[in-house]
């Protein structure tokens, strides 16, 4: 057979196979339609019963597929809070939902495992915890991170230093979910997260995530350490603006040295972040420097400086008015427009 004929026959074979497969899928869809309608009705019935607060026994649910029971409970658990949620979780545990999730957490599909591991966070029995610990060794890094987060939400997280190593946090895994994980752990064990910031061996991304997690908790004890880190950071480094933003979020005046320093850094991101932080902290000593920054070559710096001056109140607004009348054209535009935006007269 010539190569040209081979092309022809291969194309016929592939097109025929694709069409045959499609016909099978259409037939399967027709068959599954009936099952889907039946399951949707069962699900509606189940939701109605659960929302009425009825206690459902395994006998009552005989014939209802366990996957349907599990999925219905998970949806309801996500939708409600407080006592109602606890009741659903308790009932789900009695009906074997946690065991079903445990089985799913061993599925060959990473997507199924991930959902199961995320859902297991609701259950605190020993089997579920064992399963979550086992999932920390999962071959998929998203599943590993989800398992760590589920354990942390149940207050059963491993030592965070060990987790950073084990999950490759900050090295193989840059997800912002790392901030969520550290934030959850910091609720119970803030010292561990602080140690991540202070330990010089911690990789940069993990340290930055730890700083951001702690900044949102409002724990002031780290302000001096973050200030030192910011002062030591190089001009064009990625971490400098993030340290400065964290100091702004913490809002403690002890960070002022780093913020004042940041206002004069050559890096645009650092100056803009420092201006934002100065406004949040209401750093009155920075007012003159902020007024100078209204003439900065970078729009973001001018904007953040003008916003910061507004936050400083009367003294800041005074400087904006002065710049709007007497400043350079660039500073005049920034000052006058931001004053107008905030409903302040010139």
């Amino acid at each position, binding site marked *: 057979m010539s190569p*040209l004929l081979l092309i022809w026959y291969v194309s*016929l074979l592939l097109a025929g196979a694709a069409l045959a497969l499609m016909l099978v899928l259409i037939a399967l869809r*027709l068959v599954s339609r009936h099952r889907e309608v039946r399951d949707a009705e069962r699900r509606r019935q189940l939701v109605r019963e659960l929302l009425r607060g009825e206690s459902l026994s395994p006998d009552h649910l005989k014939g209802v597929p366990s996957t349907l029971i599990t999925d219905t409970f998970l949806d309801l658990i996500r939708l409600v809070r407080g006592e109602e949620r606890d009741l659903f979780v308790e009932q789900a545990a009695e009906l074997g939902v946690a065991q079903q999730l445990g089985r799913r957490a061993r599925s060959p599909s990473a997507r199924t495992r991930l959902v199961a591991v*995320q859902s297991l966070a609701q259950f605190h029995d020993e089997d579920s915890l064992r399963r979550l610990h086992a999932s920390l060794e999962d071959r998929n890094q998203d599943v590993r991170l989800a398992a760590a987060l589920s354990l942390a939400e149940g207050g059963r997280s491993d030592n965070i230093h060990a987790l950073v190593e084990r999950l490759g946090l900050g090295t193989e895994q*840059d*997800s912002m979910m790392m901030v969520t994980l550290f934030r959850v752990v910091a609720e119970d064990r803030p010292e561990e997260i602080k140690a991540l910031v202070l330990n010089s061996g911690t990789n940069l991304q993990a340290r930055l995530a730890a700083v951001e997690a702690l900044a949102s908790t409002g724990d002031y004890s780290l302000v001096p350490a973050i200030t030192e880190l910011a002062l030591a950071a190089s001009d064009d480094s990625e971490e400098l603006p993030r340290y400065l933003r964290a100091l702004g979020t913490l809002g403690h005046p002890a960070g002022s040295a780093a913020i004042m320093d940041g206002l004069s850094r050559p890096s645009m991101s650092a100056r803009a972040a420092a201006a934002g932080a100065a406004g949040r902290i209401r750093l009155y000593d920075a007012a003159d420097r902020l007024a100078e920054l209204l003439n900065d070559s970078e729009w973001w710096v001018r*904007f953040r400086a003008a916003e910061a001056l507004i936050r400083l109140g009367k003294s800041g607004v005074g400087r904006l008015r002065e710049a709007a009348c007497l400043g350079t054209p660039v500073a005049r535009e920034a000052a006058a427009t931001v004053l107008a935006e905030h409903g302040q007269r010139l």
Partner: protein
Amino acid sequence: MNGQVFASVSLAAEIIALLIVLAGLAQVLLYIVQLGFAGWALHKRPPAMSSAALWQRYGDLAPPVAIIAPSYNEELTIVESAKALLALHYPDFEVIIVNDGSRDATLHVLVEAYGLKPIQRYHDLAVQCRPIRGIYANPGVPRLIVVDKNNGGKADAINAGMNVARAPIICVIDADTLLEPDALIRAVRPFVEEPIKTVAVGGTIRIANGCRVEGGRVLEARLPRNFLALVQTVEYLRAFLMARLGLTEMRALMIISGAFGLFRRSAAIDVGGFSHNTVGEDFELVVKLHRHMRDKKQDYRITYIADPVSWTEAPETLKILGNQRARWQRGSLETFFKHRDMFLNPRYGRIGFLGMGQVVVFDVLGPLIEVAGYILVPLLWLLGLIAFDYVLAFIAVIFTFGLFLSVGSLVLEEVQLRRLPRARDLAILTLIAVVENFGYRQINNFWRIKGYWQFLRKQQGWGEMTRKGFQRP
């Protein structure tokens, strides 16, 4: 002597036919590789979570997004579009509608509907755009900002929106794009999971013709009743599910549609925003981003994800569809030739070889060779210069492999995503996937050749696109 001439002519004819078949085969093989990669990407994609679960997981981490909707003469639909955009489910977003010097009452209807007043807003001038005449807002509708500017085209309007935006992520859409309520929170996932590397993300665009639309939302997905819109449904499925997903998996995605794409604002500004001198500005922006990041030797991601869905109105007449396809072809050629130094340039790695390579195969050479094949292969066979095997091989690379790829995309959709509501819809689209190869494909190639001609004549402008509005329930 005559025999020798005939043999020489016959040899030349065989070489021409062989080149046509080989070029077609190269296209088919590239598509099959894309289909394989797309299948793998769908298999290993993260789970499709419910909106509630997404909110729970990403609610605190999702970065602020500015949605930029350029609009030109959209007075009939703009209020409904704005209403739908403002009702999106996302923690922190603003909607910037840019009235690009409309000649109708687009601005007036927005001002009336939302009680807007002129405001002062300190904004950047980082990317080039025509003068902004005014900015309008209402404190009672804090998420909405309307920018009124001199007419300058779509790219210019998006650039104006980019200047006015303050969020780190911009979402560029068409004024008539319908976003699903959770589209943003789904689309933002790469910016949360790979926050440093991700610079752009594209989502899926589906055809809204025939769907039940109310209040700017698709309430019920239905297939179009118009044949051309049905064919485009198959085309969009193939383009997004096979080509974009496959290329993303190969890390060589070259286009994010201007109808629904998210960009890191700073990265888009670094490359000068959308270019004015091309009708393929969305394609060109992505190529510029690749070039910029590779020149800076930075690790980065430009990604397409299948989950976030937006809907758009597809042309239903040959004239409008032809204009659109000619324009797309012209845009591809403009972008390719503007950045031709990247092609096969080792400095640009897989983008130079694979990304630009597939542009050459599909967009630069593809239509020319296919049209040459339609004319030459039957002619040479009728003249007795080539064997019938060449005709069969040409039919294979054009029709039967084309059918395989279209149906293959549908199989992928059904096995992995299952978004078509009824078995009947699957059957109809399968039929269309077969039928489109006979007639429509050839007309499409004619339009692409027209685009080639416009490119060579350096014709500018967008042509006509008449909106008939989405179907009411």
